């Protein structure tokens, strides 16, 4: 089947989703990212791989955090970076996405980093670009957030290198989460034998087991003997209503406390894509505890995004 994110030779052309990203390409990104981890620790935190290139961070949906990490990654590769919050400019005037993109192409942008509230937006843009321009999906609706998925498996690989021997649990709002979908595909692509999701039925997509996961509805059995716990963010608007009765009940049933975590393996690591809702999906004692690797995730996120951009620009470290 036609794969929009690869060239006919199988090289990465766009990064749109982890689904459909072959293991070979995924490993190439992770291995390249390893070589960028050291860059940040140097006095001069820059490499010249994208010198003279223009990267446009185009965010149709606000996210200071993700945009900043992409900006830092691009700048460490010596690219010129333009940040555009379309939410507050032309989209509110009714300009179509592709018109916005065409204007930026006319200004000779080399790479787009795109976030949009609608699933499929990055695919749409990728299909309408000239051949020499790449798209990095920085999150599209509920569909995909591939760099987050990549940085998560990069982090896991650093702490638990034997991927083929892991038990991983994702906890929380899988239904609305592009992060969860990306993590699941990244884990299964790398051969993690057991991926679990733990959530109430209201927060799981229909037929979620077809993604290759085991479904649990309670933390005690779901977290039993796992090596990695990946928490998902619960959006404020879902905390009360028809999805869940209250944030407090959610914390009681699915919030990660030291007690609930105690059934996991003693050396299990705890991850969260941020920003965290302390006291809703995670207890501060866990978030700040010694099993948490939440801040290393952020650090590695820069290296992984550098790797993606470098590979798309045709270079390596």
């Amino acid at each position, binding site marked *: 089947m036609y794969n*929009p994110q690869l060239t006919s030779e199988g090289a990465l052309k766009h990064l749109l989703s982890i689904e459909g990203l072959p293991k070979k390409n995924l490993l190439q990104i992770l291995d390249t990212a390893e070589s960028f981890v050291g860059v940040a620790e140097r006095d001069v935190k820059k490499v010249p791989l994208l010198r003279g290139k223009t990267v446009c961070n185009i965010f149709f949906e606000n996210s200071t955090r993700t945009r900043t990490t992409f900006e830092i990654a691009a700048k460490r590769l010596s690219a010129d970076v333009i940040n555009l919050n379309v939410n507050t400019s032309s989209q509110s005037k009714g300009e179509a996405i592709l018109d916005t993109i065409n204007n930026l192409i006319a200004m000779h942008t080399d790479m787009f980093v795109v976030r949009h509230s609608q699933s*499929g937006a990055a*695919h*749409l843009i990728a299909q309408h670009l000239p051949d020499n321009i790449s798209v990095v999906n920085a999150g599209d609706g509920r569909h995909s957030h591939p760099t987050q998925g990549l940085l998560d498996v990069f982090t896991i690989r650093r702490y638990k290198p034997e991927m083929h021997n892991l038990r991983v649990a994702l906890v929380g709002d899988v239904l609305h989460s*592009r992060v969860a979908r990306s993590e699941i595909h990244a884990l299964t692509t790398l051969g993690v034998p057991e991926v679990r999701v733990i959530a109430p039925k209201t927060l799981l997509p*229909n037929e979620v087991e077809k993604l290759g996961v085991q479904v649990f509805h309670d933390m005690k059995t779901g977290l039993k003997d796992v090596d990695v716990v990946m928490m998902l963010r619960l959006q404020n608007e879902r905390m009360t209503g028809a999805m869940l009765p209250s944030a407090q009940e959610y914390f009681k049933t699915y919030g990660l406390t030291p007690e609930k975590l105690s059934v996991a393996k003693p050396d299990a690591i705890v991850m969260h894509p941020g920003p965290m809702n302390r006291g809703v999906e995670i207890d501060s004692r866990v978030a700040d505890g010694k099993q948490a690797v939440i801040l290393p995730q952020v650090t590695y996120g820069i290296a992984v995004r550098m790797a993606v951009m470098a590979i798309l620009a045709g270079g390596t470290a």
Partner: protein
Amino acid sequence: MKVLIKNGHVIDPKNNIDAKQDIYIAAGEIVAVGKPPKDFSPNQTINAKGMVVTPGFVDLSARLREPGDEYKATLESELHAAAAGGITSLACPPDTDPILDEPGLIEMLKQRARKHNLARIYPLGALTQKLEGKALTEMCQLSEAGCAGFTQADKSIIDTQVLWRAFEYAATFGYTIFLRPEEPFLAKNGVAHDGELAGRLGLKGIPSAAESLMIATILRIATETETNIHFCRLSTAEGVELIRNAKNNGVAVSADVSAHHLHLTEHDIAYFNTHAHIKPPLRTIRDREALCRGVADGTIDAICSDHTPVDDDAKLVPFAEAEAGATGLELLLPLTLKWANNNQSSLADAISRITIHPANILGIKSGHLSLGANADIAIFDPEAAWQVSADNLKSQGKNTPFLNTEMIGKVHYTLLNGHITYQNKTD
């Protein structure tokens, strides 16, 4: 004007004709099939050798986009597309701008269509004012103005009290109500079948139960109020089963399916292909097979095009924001033939699904070649292959999930009232 159609293979399901015969037309009517009438000397002779000659097709749902959406399509462009598809009668839903809920609008539309003289159009009036599901429309006056029935198009009535009253009122005068069964709360903001693919792509799903729940509700109220109900665009296996049981229990209902749903599934969305964003959503292979079987065993009476021309701009947006619908007038015949071929159904059975059955549902006199009937006729080559492309479609809407695929079955002539409205010029 006298016309002779000779050497063709005539299929007229209503009259059980399935044989090589000649058709004789005078003054817009069929005057003989088989033997020539006395002293018949044609002004025009069409040689239909190697072709199939059938009643002109009757389409239960075609959006012509007038009034209001002329930038998507016009009466003129779409009636030419209908003629090119062999369609001579079509019902059009009221979800135009303004909505067809006043007699004056119906009269204007009918009059404008008559001027083009390319197909008979049968507007379906809005069942409730502005399709809001609150207040009834003036059904008697709308009927007098030319409405063939009443519908909510893609909007469901939320208030079951209003639904009940609307059924009672329509039943008083014997009008047929055309409803696409969809429970509006379960379907809210949904854009794809609530299944594996929607889960993977992160699209909001519409569960199959949205259809079956609404069918159950409508069937119950229709039975209580003795209303003629036609179910539009079935999409689920459960829905087909409910209709089958109702028919077996003697409930007088009918149903149709869009030609798209007999061939496509949720997987045709692939990487967010907005051409596959249609209503109701494309569902699973199991559903598609149940729909195909439903047509074969007569649970589903008719196949329609559900023609919905959409402009490029409204499709060049993220999937969920794309306007739903696909162009279909020119694909109705080949997709119906493909269904027959895939399901070992006879050509006559296939033709009945787009002629006499939909005509009976609309309560119109078309869809057959009886003596004295209007000479509305389609002549097509059932073996001819052609490629679906923007250039090959007469419709202003080029939006189809079948773009660049091959179709078998090509209309060569279409006649309305005995005059040629379309002739394939490529051969």
